[in-house]
């Protein structure tokens, strides 16, 4: 039997579940090989491990063809839920995996949406269900979306049930009598009333330390203390291997079978127990210990070689400032994307003359050319102003911005900025003439005219205010 078919196979008319003989008739010269289910499962586990290192601390493989990820608390680090899921699908597509993804409140609901929602949502490969609404949205999916055995689904169909919503309304007792408790449990999990814990994938290569508690702990100070002890053990293990950790996951197994996780990341590989403990303790308030924590597991998800280094203890010179600890603390608080340095880009267009680079990047030593003055504040979108100006190259005499009329006392310019025709075709002849103007109270502004004053093809000849000088 054919197990799965990709887009090219489906175009040839083959579908999943078709007998092999029929497939051989449809496609002449078809090469048939036996499916190796164990290798598939192993590959799925490897994929789950890869996603563990990139996205979230709790990842498990959902055989036969899926991966489930618990994204509580990590969405904001990747730019939002929608952005994160879309990025995941695109990254998998770049590795030649066609993937469909869904984000919902519970494992079963997400499972259902990922596999069955695409058919109703015009073939979108990413479905994000707003929080709290997955219980309602799951009702409209077919009953095959529940993780039930195939014959049970067939029996339910014979009885006339098509959608989950129809099952959810019926009284539970007769269904349990006929089909067993599994049906009720699956329904509850899909609606979010019961939860199924995710067993995170583990790998023998990852360095991991764990601690079991005879009595469950819940107080923040106790958690912090034991976190410190675990981090010390982990750092010793890392040192034995000569590695430093760049991403660490602390998993708490709770008494009621839930798993909570804290993930921290550093810019450079780190083996310093005090620093890592501090990063973890900053985030302890984000987890909910519930009835108590039974097991704490600390794993170094991403470890890189960190050989010992000689530090410079010269008494004469200044030691190199080590701010990577502070960068890590700030990055774990606001996100790695919000920390950056600016670097110059060789471009005349002002908004394109800067770019963001990582804060720990090597010093480039380059700076912007300073023959023309630049404003301290640049408006993200230039605002149109009304002016009275003499063409072609006189600055305005009067301009109105945000409702206030200002008379120009002194002005400097024009600085002509040509469009970058090699980047955008529309800028082939575009020109901006920038003027620095000062009104009679002393406030200085940076305004420009889109166009060279003579030729209509160089711009609309409208005036805009782009920045404010100090």
């Amino acid at each position, binding site marked *: 039997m054919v197990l799965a078919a990709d887009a090219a196979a489906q175009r040839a008319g083959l579908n999943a579940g078709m007998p092999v003989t029929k497939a051989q008739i449809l496609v002449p010269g078809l090469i048939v090989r036996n499916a190796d289910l164990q290798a598939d499962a192993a590959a799925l586990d490897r994929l789950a491990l890869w996603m563990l290192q990139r996205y979230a601390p709790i990842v498990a493989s959902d055989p036969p063809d899926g991966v489930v990820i618990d994204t509580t608390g990590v969405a904001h680090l990747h730019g939002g839920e929608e952005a994160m899921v879309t990025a995941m699908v695109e990254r998998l597509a770049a590795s030649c995996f066609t993937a469909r993804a869904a984000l919902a409140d519970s494992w079963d609901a997400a499972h259902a949406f990922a596999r069955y929602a695409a058919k109703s949502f015009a073939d979108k490969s990413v479905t994000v269900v707003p929080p709290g609404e997955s219980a309602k949205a799951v009702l409209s999916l077919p009953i095959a979306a529940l993780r039930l055995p195939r014959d049970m689904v067939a029996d339910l169909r014979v009885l006339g049930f098509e959608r989950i919503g129809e099952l959810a309304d019926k009284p539970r007792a007769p269904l349990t009598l006929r089909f067993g408790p599994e049906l009720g449990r699956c329904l509850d999990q899909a609606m979010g009333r019961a939860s199924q814990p995710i067993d995170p994938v583990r790998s023998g290569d990852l360095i991991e330390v764990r601690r079991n508690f005879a009595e469950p702990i819940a107080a923040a100070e106790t958690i912090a203390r034991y976190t410190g002890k675990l981090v010390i053990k982990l750092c010793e293990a890392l040192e034995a291997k000569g590695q430093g950790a760049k991403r660490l996951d602390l998993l708490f197994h709770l008494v009621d079978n839930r798993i909570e996780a804290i993930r921290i990341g550093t810019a450079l590989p780190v083996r310093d127990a005090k620093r890592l403990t501090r990063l973890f303790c900053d985030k302890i308030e984000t987890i909910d210990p519930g009835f108590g924590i039974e097991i704490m597991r600390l794993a170094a998800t991403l470890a890189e070689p960190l050989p010992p280094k000689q530090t410079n203890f010269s008494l004469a010179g200044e030691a190199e*400032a080590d701010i990577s600890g502070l960068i890590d603390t700030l990055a774990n608080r606001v996100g790695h994307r919000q920390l950056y340095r600016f670097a110059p880009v060789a471009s005349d267009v002002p908004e394109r003359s800067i770019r963001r680079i990582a804060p720990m990047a090597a010093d480039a030593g380059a700076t912007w050319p300073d023959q023309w003055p630049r404003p*301290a504040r640049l408006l993200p979108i230039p605002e149109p102003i009304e002016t009275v100006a003499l063409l072609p190259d006189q600055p305005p005499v009067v301009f109105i911005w945000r409702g206030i009329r200002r008379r120009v006392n002194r002005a400097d310019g024009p600085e002509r900025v040509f469009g970058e025709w090699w980047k955008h075709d529309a800028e082939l002849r575009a020109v901006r003439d920038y003027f620095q103007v000062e009104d009679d109270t002393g406030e200085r502004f940076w305004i420009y005219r889109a166009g060279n004053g003579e030729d209509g093809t160089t711009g609309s000849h409208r005036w805009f205010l782009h920045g404010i*000088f*100090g």
Partner: protein
Amino acid sequence: MYTPVPIAVVEALRERIRCLEGRARHRRAVLPFGVKAIDERLPEGGLALGALHEVAGGGNGAIDGAAAALFAAGVAARTRGRVLWCVTRQDLFAPALASAGLAPDRVIYVEAGDEKSVLACFEEGLRHGGSHGGLHGGFGAVVAEVARLSMTASRRLQLAAEGSGAIGIAIRRFPAPSPRLPSGRLRPSEPVIGPAKGRTRWTGYGEGQGEGAFPQTQIRDSDSRRRPLTRNLREERANSDLSPQAGRGEGQPTAAVTRWRVSALPSHPLPVPGIGRPRWRLELVRCRGGESACFEVEACDAQGRLALPSDLVHGSGQKAIGQRRTAR
């Protein structure tokens, strides 16, 4: 009758107070401005390192904070080490800071997203700054753009700065007023105060014990053009029994060692058409251990240094406000 107290007694008393204050700072490190007129008004002759300072813009500069940012950049450029700049939303233009002396390699920006995170990042940066543990490391200056700075927050920041020796600069930027109608007219509820001749109107609210309030608005006049207020003053005065600025948190005291206000003035006049070196009105609104003062200075040059305008130095007819007149 009044007997003059001998100077030695006053000095001894000062020494006792310094010891009582704890944290024996025998001689605090300072960052002088290099301008004698400003340095002599500051205690210990310069901006105290290991302390928190506040800068705000005057008039429309209170909203956009362009001059305040350049002033802070000039100060930070003259410190050693890196600079951490915390904002809620990024609208600085880095080439302008580079022309004030702050090279782009030195500045690390944090876009924190909301006020609480900005203050938290500010505190973290100050703790890691300056002469930390005897080695020069971390940040030489930490700058943050905040709108609200309560007394408790500023005290924490001041303690963090004292512990590490970095200079902390809080740029106060106040939120923009409600938008105007597109026709450029005033909204009907906004009252308009009559014009004042070319200088800041001090309302006197919130001023006391030598601490000046940020003015509510900078009113300028020429040819009877009226500049509308940024807030509905009458309503606020009716609603609040404290100063009207309390609604925006402007006049509230903080634990900063000095408080500055930078407003834009017409630039250095050139004999040819063009704009010369910009000029600022730099007001020392509050200074711990000193008095307020007001200076007219020329803006930062490529090394971040201020200068006195040349026609003032040579004593042209313009009277400097609040400054003792020096003999020519």
